[in-house]
């Protein structure tokens, strides 16, 4: 565990002492009564509306969606990821075709490019002329770093982008690359070649979700007295509030993942006018997590690969899901779509493994690596 994590655990425990008094059951009872009265009223109103206008259809954009609420038959399979002891026996395939970082080195095909800074870079995407990164600099304190956005070039040179530096409060968290690779966005939209500011994000932008073909999607500031929304925006245009919360933007495409934490989530097409067309919905373990670049397959929260057209779901791990929690807070377990047909993932803190989304046949793409918290892997999907 890092110094920051140790400090965090200690401070979280100290901050909640002494123990608060118990909640009164009467308070909960009152809330239950109020909730029941409200639900009864809503049902009555809904019933009256239905009786008065039976042909009204409340548009959800889900008419053509394939809805999966119950766990489908996940067929046993002898493909997928084998037990950790057997991963080394998988056939050896080509190195990853997308960039990936290991410690302070960026791997691009056979090329290894040193990355400046410490703590492992956050590789955000591919731009014209290199790779857009966030690096950690200058550990000033056991758990305090300064971070820097910049472009890493193939010759190892690093060009900082000072116009994206997060200074002062508030500022925009996270960053993204434009679909054409010419611009990057964070605090502002800047030209990836010159670093010059092209446009400033709207003032309420707080958390950048991604940059797809329809534009930049961000969340507004999280305030207790406002209902925050996901917003679609392109430079020079007005922000468009979206009807649903966007949790993921598939880079370079019009596809997004929407929905609530812990509930059902949808794969949808986000149009330039802000409208959403639901393509697929999953719930309770089958919530979509990663959509393939061509939008045909989804990796779900229970690590199943789902064919959106047929709804067929197959577990990525052929047997029981390995216990990636041990050792705890250790190297990251990651998965990305290497391309529309293949998933790339870290396995057992040792291997990079490639699996076909169609056949679930897997092969080793890199390793053995000694992946540790201080020497971690960062997989980058295609732009």
């Amino acid at each position, binding site marked *: 565990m890092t110094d*920051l*994590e140790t400090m*965090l*655990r200690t*401070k*979280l*425990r*100290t*901050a*909640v002492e002494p*123990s*608060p*008094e*118990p*909640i*009164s*059951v009467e*308070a*909960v*009872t*009152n809330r*239950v*009564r*109020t*909730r029941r009265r*409200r639900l009864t009223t809503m049902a009555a109103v809904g019933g009256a509306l239905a009786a008065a206008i039976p042909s009204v259809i409340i548009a959800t954009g889900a008419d053509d969606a394939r809805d999966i609420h119950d766990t489908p038959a996940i067929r046993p399979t002898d493909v997928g990821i084998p037990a950790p002891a057997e991963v080394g026996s998988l056939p050896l395939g080509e190195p990853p075709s997308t960039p990936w970082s290991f410690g302070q080195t960026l791997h691009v095909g056979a090329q290894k490019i040193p990355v400046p800074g410490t703590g492992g870079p*956050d590789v955000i995407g591919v731009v014209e002329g290199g790779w857009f990164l*966030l690096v*950690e600099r200058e550990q*000033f*304190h056991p*758990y*305090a*770093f*300064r*971070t820097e956005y910049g472009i890493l070039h193939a010759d190892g040179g690093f060009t900082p982008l000072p116009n994206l530096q*997060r200074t002062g*409060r508030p500022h925009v*968290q996270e960053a993204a690359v434009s679909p054409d690779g010419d611009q990057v966005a964070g605090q502002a939209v800047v030209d990836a070649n010159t670093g010059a500011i092209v446009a400033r994000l709207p003032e309420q932008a*707080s*958390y950048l979700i991604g940059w797809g073909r329809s534009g930049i999607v961000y*969340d507004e500031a*999280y*305030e207790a007295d406002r*209902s*925050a*929304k996901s917003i679609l925006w392109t430079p020079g245009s007005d922000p468009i509030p979206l009807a649903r919360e966007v949790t993921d933007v598939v880079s370079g495409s019009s596809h997004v993942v929407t929905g609530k*934490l*812990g*509930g059902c989530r949808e794969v949808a097409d986000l149009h330039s006018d802000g409208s959403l067309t639901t393509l697929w919905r999953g719930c309770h373990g089958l*919530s979509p*997590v990663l959509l393939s670049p061509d939008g045909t397959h989804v*990796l779900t*929260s229970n690590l199943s690969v789902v064919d959106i057209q047929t709804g067929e779901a197959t577990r990525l791990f052929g047997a029981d899901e390995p*216990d990636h*929690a041990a050792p*705890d*807070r250790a190297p*990251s*377990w990651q998965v990305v779509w290497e391309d529309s047909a293949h998933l790339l993932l870290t396995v057992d803190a040792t291997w990079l493994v490639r699996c076909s989304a169609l056949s679930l046949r897997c092969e080793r793409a890199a390793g053995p690596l000694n992946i540790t918290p201080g020497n971690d892997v960062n997989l980058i999907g295609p732009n």
Partner: protein
Amino acid sequence: MQEPVGFGQFVAARSPALLRSAWLLTGDEALAEDLVQTALARVWPRWERIYRSDSSAEAYVRRVMVTTYANWWRRQWRAEQPVAEVPERAARVDGYAEVNDREEVRQALGVLPPRQRAVIVLRYYEDLTERQTAGLLDCSIGTVKSQASKALRRLREQSWATVDDTTKAADRDRP
């Protein structure tokens, strides 16, 4: 309206622990109490089905609490709070304002989006594993890891900014 069997004892025994977690999530004592009451009210109709032990029921209530919290800012949740509840909130007095760690944690967590804050609380206060956290939030282990990583980076940057501000203030004060 009859209280489900065992519900009162559970609330008396476990609500303090739930309030602690809720405070870390919301940063406000009144909101924390709202969150726990909301979660308990939602669990009430299903109590007899979910209760097997205090610990299993608590895990269920925590799940409802965390997902309720993470989705609160997505709608005008205050519209759901009945006016009749206000006196109960007002009766509680915040006796912790002078504790430095509490304020520091409240401010630090306050800059994180709800999902990241939930991951930090579950991982570093509840001590859940990545797998347990992913199961509770219904997301992948990789998502838990990336959200925690982003949150920790954000906290490190904030620490830098705090240290930087302190250094600048010290420089200004230096004769």
